[in-house]
């Protein structure tokens, strides 16, 4: 799909199955005053295909910045980012993004909002309409297809944003605190749905959250980021067997791991 000049994956150097590979990537935002804001310190990170990786860290540490680099919206100041062995040069139809805010277009109906990536990518809309309806039904929005975003609550809008990322069936899903604005019950339900989607459709998920239990519950790996300029200071494997259920949050492994992450973040000035 990518049109970028594709260098052949450096033979031998390519880690087997590493879908996303970040080597020494930094990012400095230019500012009006002239002094750039260093948002990311060198990041080294590999994510294998079909992994579910979460990222937690203090507010303003650069999580969204890292996600925007992976989405192709920002280009790293230094270092290298490869996707499937090819340098990342811009957004890819193979990557779906769920933003911190739902960012729906108020002049489109819910159905047309979630079909927007299909139209932008010049795919056949008719082939995706049923999938869009099914996904909307899955997140509890059946019957809202022809409503407008202003008629939906914040939580419902956020669910529409998730469906919009899923409709084109991307291989990689980047999610920036997608459930931050939701109530606890909806959040748990969507966590379950996300686990199911991930298990059924084998997507690679990069998931930013403020909730340590959520990160542990959903992930194969939980990354912890330092304060700005952010770096990855810890990388935990989560060994709890899948499929996980809500009861698993009281498992000793679960409690132990969330405790360790929390202590690490508290030592570094805390989450939020």
């Amino acid at each position, binding site marked *: 799909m990518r049109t970028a000049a594709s260098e052949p994956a450096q033979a031998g150097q390519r880690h087997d199955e590493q879908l996303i590979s970040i080597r020494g990537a930094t990012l400095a935002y230019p500012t009006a005053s002239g002094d750039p804001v260093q948002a990311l310190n060198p990041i080294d990170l590999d994510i294998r295909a079909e992994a579910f990786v979460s990222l937690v860290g203090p507010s303003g540490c650069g999580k969204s910045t890292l996600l925007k680099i992976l989405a192709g919206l920002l280009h790293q100041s230094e270092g290298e980012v490869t996707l499937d062995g090819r340098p990342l040069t811009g957004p890819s139809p193979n990557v779906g993004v769920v*933003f911190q805010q739902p960012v729906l277009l108020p002049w489109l109906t819910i159905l047309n909002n979630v079909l927007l990536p299909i139209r932008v990518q010049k795919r056949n809309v008719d082939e995706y309409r049923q999938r869009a309806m099914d996904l909307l039904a899955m997140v509890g929005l*059946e019957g809202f297809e022809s409503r407008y975003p202003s008629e939906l609550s914040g939580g419902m809008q956020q669910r529409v944003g998730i469906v919009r990322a899923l409709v084109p069936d991307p291989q990689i899903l980047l999610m920036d605190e997608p459930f931050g604005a939701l109530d606890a019950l909806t959040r748990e339900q969507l966590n379950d749905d996300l686990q199911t989607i991930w298990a059924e459709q084998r997507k690679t998920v990069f998931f930013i959250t403020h909730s340590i239990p959520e990160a542990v519950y959903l992930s194969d790996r939980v990354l912890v980021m330092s304060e700005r300029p952010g770096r990855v200071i810890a990388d935990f494997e989560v060994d709890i067997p899948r499929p996980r259920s809500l009861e698993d949050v009281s498992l000793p492994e679960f409690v132990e791991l969330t405790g360790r992450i929390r202590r690490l973040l508290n030592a570094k000035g805390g989450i939020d």
Partner: protein
Amino acid sequence: MTADLASASPRTSPAPRRTARRTARRARRADWIAVVSTFVVVVGGWEAVVRIADISSIVLPPPSLIVGKLYDGLVHGTFVKNLGYTMAETVLGFAIAAFLGIVLGALVAEIRWIRRAVYPYIVAFQTVPKIALAPLLVIWFGFGMTSKVIVAVTVAFFPVIVNTIEGLQNTDHQRIDMIRAMGAGRFEAFRRVKLPSALPYIFAGLDAAIVLSLLGAVVGEFMGSRAGLGNQILIFNSVLDIAGSFAVLILLSIIGFLLHLLLVMVQKKVVFWTNVHAVSSGA
């Protein structure tokens, strides 16, 4: 589908909703009463003062005389013909200004070298009283309709281009990120996100433009013409028929108001998702 929608929407008990609607209706009626009262007091006072103080109708004609003139002019006189003439100039001028303003505004907002070359001039010209060009334009383009249309375009163009640029540049950055992340190029992002996002601004510009276009047409006619409502005012003034002039003035006000109303109606249809009245008129 309809059944789904109905069952999905939360049911509010009818009682509070009805009271809310009744309160709103009552508030609206109170507004109307206030507006009509003001009108009655001002017009009645005007009529009374003119009659009691016995002011000559060459200085200040009474409303009753003006209304009579308006009726005469419309039914027996030349008002309708002149109205058609001025309206043609106004609508033509508005259409050209709207088209040029939106297209050039989009080019300035989207293409950097055009913006660099042109934008400072737009800002500079914004403060020039364009209407002062009317005498010159009439000399250049003659006493016919062309010069009036050009005056109308000159005054109506700026609010459209300024608001178009403003609207396009103010597009929420998150929306642009959202569409770019899907792989949209610049044109797709423009068409699907930026232009619709700018519509409330563009309509604010069009609203200013339509009234300015009428102004341009009338002032153009003042500078020399053979027809139109501006010409009609000049004729009445030359024979000191002040009531006649007032009648034309009222006609012009009504037209201006109706054009504005028409535009607001179109805006509500097109930009249905927002009721925020956007920004600077740029006039």
